[in-house]
């Protein structure tokens, strides 16, 4: 069992945006390096490829691309590190990984048809639940 990442300490705050950026790249590399392990322990070979997981990680990072405050980036990095740690430690189960990183946020019930195109937010929310 790979507990290698457990020793991760809370690093000092990034002094500048450049430093934060380089840390993000470091984190991305670290995550990519642990992909083979993750594929192995969660038995993901038949549902996803390594490159798909890689692009999933990068899309998670890109989701926060608008953030420019180094403090916020540090916090997001910390959360990402936690998540990676949990995954590598096998603190999660297979369906967590599949649900979050293979299928994406929408889950299995993805509505890909074009019926709702052009309808208002009200109607989309109405179909989901009464409380909006």
């Amino acid at each position, binding site marked *: 069992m790979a507990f290698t990442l457990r020793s991760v300490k809370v690093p000092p705050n990034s002094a500048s945006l450049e430093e934060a950026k380089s840390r993000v790249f470091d984190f991305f590399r670290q995550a990519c390096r642990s992909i083979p392990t993750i594929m192995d322990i969660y038995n993901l070979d038949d549902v996803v490829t390594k490159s798909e997981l890689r692009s999933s990680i990068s899309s998670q990072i890109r989701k926060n691309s608008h953030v420019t405050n180094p403090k916020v980036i540090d916090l997001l990095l910390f959360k990402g590190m936690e998540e990676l740690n949990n995954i590598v430690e096998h603190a999660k189960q297979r369906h967590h990984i599949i649900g979050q990183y293979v299928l994406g946020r929408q889950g299995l019930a993805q509505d890909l048809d074009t*019926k709702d195109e052009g*309808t*208002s*937010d*009200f*109607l989309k929310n*109405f*179909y989901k639940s*009464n*409380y909006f």
Partner: protein
Amino acid sequence: MGLGLLTSRTLKSSRILHSQYSRFRPIVTKPKLQSPDASSAAAAAPQPETTPSPPKKPVGGARIHFTNPDDVIEVFVDGFPVKIPKGMTVLQACEIAGVDIPRFCYHSRLSIAGNCRMCLVEVEKSPKPVASCAMPALPGMKIKTDTPLAKKAREGVMEFLLMNHPLDCPICDQGGECDLQDQSMAFGSDRGRFTEMKRSVVDKNLGPLVKTVMTRCIQCTRCVRFATEVAGVQDLGMLGRGSGEEIGTYVEKLMTSELSGNVIDICPVGALTSKPFAFKARNWELKGTETIDVTDAVGSNIRIDSRGPEVMRILPRLNEDINEEWISDKTRFCYDGLKRQRLNDPMIRGADGRFKAVSWRDALAVVAEVALHVKPEEIVGIAGQLSDAESMMALKDLLNRMGSNNVWCEGTGTNPSADLRYRYLMNSSIAGLEKADVFLLVGTQPRYEAAMINARIRKTVRASNAKVGYIGPPADFNYDYQHLGVGPKTLLEIAEGRHSFCSAILNAKNPAIIVGSGLFEREDKDAIFYAAETIAKNGNVIRPDWNGFNVLLLSAAQAAALDLGLVPESSSSIESAKFLYIMGADDVNLDKVPADAFVVYQGHHGDRSVYRANVILPSAAYSEKEGTYENTEGRTQQTLPAVPTVGDARDDWKIIRALSEVSRICLPYDTLLSLRSRMRTVAPNLLHVDEIEPATFGPSLSIDCTQEINLTPFKAAVENFYMTNSVTRASKIMAQCSAMLLKE
């Protein structure tokens, strides 16, 4: 041995003595304690003149009006001067001074019994403590509520009360909101001297609503006084003497009052509790939501107590202008209907006649498809008696945009007139009825149509001996009334001045005419209203300072529906309908609907109209949504959601808004707020919450009626008080009530 050591040693020994004393504190009373003067002297001696705390505010923020400045007297409560009107009791004076006196038998809305003795206070120059609830305050009286004598008196009363009261608080439904429990904690002794057996009393059967555990009764007689004074039934009484004293019905008899649930609230102990609520929940785990009731047109203020997604019970909320602090049994016990017969999924009737659950997307698509292929004049919409103003506004807007103007609310008749507000409102207001001295009830039975208004009339009859004349089918009211006749014939006689009751109206200072809205359904309603208005004109019923012309509505939606102008274009539209949109209307006659018509039912209960529906759209009940309602006196009030909606149900207005978008005539509001601002352009009074908007114009504007009056007698508008709408018809408790209480 140093001095310091000596001191510490004495201190230590004295501490030991103290602890020993407290461990073996004797239960026996000392002669010194038994003499009140000695004990008060003993207690008063060590603390001679403590600086009094600043004056307190009146209990519950009460305010007093001095009608006559000569009648003001001044008394002293705990050293503070208080000005009160003459005739107030000592207890009321203390309340105005901000001192809450413990009490069991005293209740501000009932007569004074003075039998529990819990409210004893000390009055200077009085040899004994006095029962403050029964003692009138006299000028210059010096009342002391916190003296050792008063405390000791209360402690003694508590000890006597607890002598025969079972200690079953852990299994008692009153536990946690029990007056006896609270006051024994606050004023009781920490030990009792009672070692004998407690007495036990046989439980009484008061019907399906009130559970009795008579051993817990402390004989405060609040329930007896409530039944005789407010509810107007002589069912309960006091039997026996001394320790054999019991509350009961003397013979095996059920309590046949439509207000019987209120004895649960006024019982200070757990002797009378709610039978449907028995052992269902503890009161501290409930979440209270302050909302209003929609089972009749009164709009009683209620608190819905819920646990998670379930409504556990309904309690009244104080509102002096509407329901005081009572509610009717239908309001209180209909809540189990909210759990039965609910519609939880959109459904479409298949070719085999069975309903099949579908998604909202499919259901709305089907409805929109049909609606677009129907001629505009064949589209009809009917709002139900529980609909809120917002959804009725949305329904009217939707149908108007589809090109139809055939939309109305059930119960307002085939040809309602919404032009003159005074013709469908209770113009003298519910609280204003107390000023009336003659009532003329035309085709209405307030006891069954609006129990709270009937309680108000009864209060007036009791207080001022007001005369009540009644035209309608024989009925049993709980006050004295004169049965003038059964139909319009008598009404015409009074209108033409040929009846003996005319002189009563003419001689009255504030005569009140109450016309039942059951008459809306009659063909000759214009003529009847014209006759009633003639009586009003002849009897000087409508004056600048008094408007006694009242219409008593039957359901919560009617006033708002008429304010919003839900009036059908043609009275026979239902016969030619091809697309019928029913929004919770279950009492409308659907026999005349053509067989090929497409019927959409939007509602929360699988009730009568569902049998004819082609599509069901599930919506939220009044306990689950925020909605505006206008009661029969024109007062706007709002419900608040207490529990989440059932299944896949949606709020009424949201369904109509979504349907409008699917049928490509999108209504311009996305939120409740924007819908309300649309409502403001139609009926601004529906946004002034908790206010009465009086009718602007009187009958001076109404034109002479040429309609012929039909002499068929009036019918009772409500056949079964307990089951009048879809919620109450689904309720098991209401079914039990109708089976047990109405057969007698």
